[in-house]
């Protein structure tokens, strides 16, 4: 996945491969956690709404 994401980034990994992987992984983590949490809330809201009908 990191390789796939690396292909769309505008800069080549001119750091060490380790730091480059860490940069991509940290960005993936940030969005996965934040949007994952928002998605969880949306699911719970939908569940309550459907149960109360």
């Amino acid at each position, binding site marked *: 996945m990191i390789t796939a994401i690396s292909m769309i980034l505008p800069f080549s990994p001119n750091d060490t491969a380790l*730091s480059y992987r860490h*940069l991509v992984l940290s960005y993936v983590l940030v969005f996965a956690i934040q949007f994952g949490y928002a998605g969880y809330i949306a699911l719970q809201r939908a569940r309550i709404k459907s149960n109360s009908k």
Partner: protein
Amino acid sequence: MKKLLWLWFFATFAVLAYGFYLAIFVAPADAEQGNVFRIFFYHVPSAIMALVFPYVNFIAALFYLGLRRKNPLGALKADAFALAAAEVTLVFTTICLATGILWGKAAWGIWWAWDARLTSLLLLWLLYVSYLLVRRFSSTGQTQTLAAILSVFAAVDVPIVYMSIRWWRTQHPSPVFFGGQDSGVDPSMMPAFLWNLLAWAMWGVFLISFRYGLERMRQVRAQSIAMHAIDAGLEGNA
């Protein structure tokens, strides 16, 4: 209100996208660290939010404690707000720790150091994990009060986290902002930082509102179930 929340969501999404564009495509690579420095654009705003939202949780907890006897409905709303802020704080603290660990491995060669900044932030994370565990598993009638007391401990930890890199010598870098003459980042990096700070602040506000709405739905549903049970009981006795 619902319309305003979705409007806020789309505005936040636009600012997040612009912040991402600036962080990846516009801001230059750091002269010493190279591209791994770009973690900074998400790590620092997350850290700031992880130190701001505990006070939203703390103030809501104080409202809960103040209102719980005089105005139970107001207290329920304050408690829902406190819970929403606690969860969002945990999200931002988790991200701050995770991105910090990844940056630390690349920059220092180690995943973790038991210095004052990292340890006090880990303590804040553990306090909010405890807060949510109490909310989830405590079966006493005092759950909200116990959680509110944990909020007070968290509010005490926040200034220690903030001041730790000023009070003690740490592995963590010295303050980037408000740290004296040698602090700060290159002006060419500031737009990326400020837009991402705005974006994550807006996202945090959105998450708290969204989570607050869910908790209020749960509270209203629980009240309605309790009312039905009372009605059924009264009808059974009649």
